[in-house]
């Protein structure tokens, strides 16, 4: 039982990171911290995919000339390369928006922005 749980410790790390990231996104008021949370959340998914591709004792998937060489599954790595690019784009866009929000509102705290927005609404 214990062995079964510990044997998949990498997935436990994925779940812990995932929940940490999602919790930060939901609970923090600072927009930059929200982006940090989002990045942690996405990174946990990258780890999840890479764990899937790992074959015990396998090497890098490179043609070596040996016939029966055991290698890890390269496909999840390729997918995650794409997902990392998407993640970088998301973070860049988010940070750019935060810059604009800072210059328009003068703050990046969500509750203060919400207060300013309600003032704007009642105008």
């Amino acid at each position: 039982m214990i062995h079964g749980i510990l044997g998949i410790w990498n997935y436990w790390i994925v779940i812990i990171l995932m929940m940490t990231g999602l919790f930060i996104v939901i609970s923090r008021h600072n927009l930059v911290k929200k982006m940090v949370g989002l990045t942690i959340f996405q990174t946990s998914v990258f780890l999840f995919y890479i764990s899937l591709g790992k074959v015990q004792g396998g090497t890098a998937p490179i043609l070596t000339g040996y016939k029966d060489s055991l290698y890890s599954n390269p496909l999840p790595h390729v997918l995650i390369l794409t997902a990392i690019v998407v993640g970088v784009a998301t973070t860049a866009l988010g940070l750019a928006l935060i810059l604009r929000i800072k210059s328009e509102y003068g703050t990046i705290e969500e509750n203060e922005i919400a207060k300013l927005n309600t003032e704007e609404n009642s105008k």
Partner: protein
Amino acid sequence: MIDLIAIENHLPALQVVIPLLLAPFAILVSLPFLSWLVALFGSLFCLYSSVSLFFHVSEFGKINYFMGGWLPPYGIEYVIDDASSFMIVLISLMGVFATIFAYQSLKKEINKKSQSKVYGMWLLALGGLLGLVTTGDAFNLFVFLEISSLSSVTLVALGSKNDKRALTAAFNYLLIGAVGATFYVIGVGLLYSVTGTLNIADLTIKISELTGNNSVKAGISFIIIGLMVKAAIFPLHIWLPSAYTFAPSAVAVLLTATATKAALYVLARILFTLLFNADDFTVIILQWVLLPASIVAIFFGTIRAIFEKDIKKLLAFSSLSQIGYITIGLTLGTASGIMASFIHIANHSMMKAALFMGIGAISIQLNKSINVDDLKGLSKSMPVTSISLTVVILSLLGIPLTIGFISKVYLLKAVFSHGNWPILFIIVLTSFLALGYAWQMIENIWMKQPGDTTLTIKDDPKIYIPLVVLAVFNIIFGIYAYPIVNSAFNASAAIFWKAL
């Protein structure tokens, strides 16, 4: 010499690649008018390719296009069947209308220096959505989901010239959208871990052998939640009202007509093509997740719209309730229900796009967000816009001879044959409730004396042409509904029957 026949064969790829390739050109030419021409050319090309694909598919059947000649399940496959060709025609047609409307509207509504850049994002959004509905690869679908949503976030944020709240709306859209997309990736990863494939057709076969597998259930749940965020289905709709309200009018037109609709289509395909054999679990999702969500969405959207004064926000909440009608059709789990959903996807795109165009035409001239009171006496100052708006509002209510009526009839017919009386009652009741928000617009337009502001504005042919065409479509397809109904029937058959 370029071989024309060879180009025809590659249309499934080109309709996605051309807008993506044109996007940097639209940014580089840096003259707003030229950039707009590039965008218009891109959207017209998409319309051409999607229409010719549509006719090709309806004549010769489904097209499987292998990207780069790599065969599935290893290569990426683009599937153009009756359902996805229905969607690409809808998206590119609405894309053309929105692009024509965009030039005048964006000229007034966004900063001068971003005017040519906006069309780059515009084309990216269009290409992303077209890719989203045609791709047959689960991970490729994620990439297109992100291309389209990142570019729509940028487009929404451009509304910040008039109202700084556009920035927070865009940020929330980005954050919630990114979490939704990541949920989708987790789901795909879980499915990949048990099936070892990403091709949707291949996944369908492999999943059907794995009924009751918990990884599959968890993966599907993650995917459905992720797509519900993108489609703005009730509890996950938070980003939608503010994004539509503060976005530039043309962007609201594009997003309402295409973005949520593409996500709804993908949801339908996951539910009915991918899951056709996991019966118990599909029923649980439909009956206990989507059905309550869409009923609450219909009530919540309608009631919030009744008490809303800002018209763009009113329309956004009305969109929420209309998305509820679309998902109710899906939850029936019958071919006629899916057909009703497809009819309403097309019809709601046309209605909401026209409404946002009409309201946009007014707000461009008044240079502010429009309240219900601002519509007072509009019939005197803007007769053409008023008549078109009224037609579309009546269509939204489901008055006979309009497309809204066709939607309601087929939805009610599907619910009726399913025998689900409470839902039938709810649909009829909420249709009457919708009068609450629609009537105050009509009343203000036609029966009130104009205020001071309304008298200063007048019709502008450059702006109202796409609106009038869409309003005419609302009537034409309301009387001669065969094209939409028939292609929606084929689409539902492609998604549902063949799978069984």
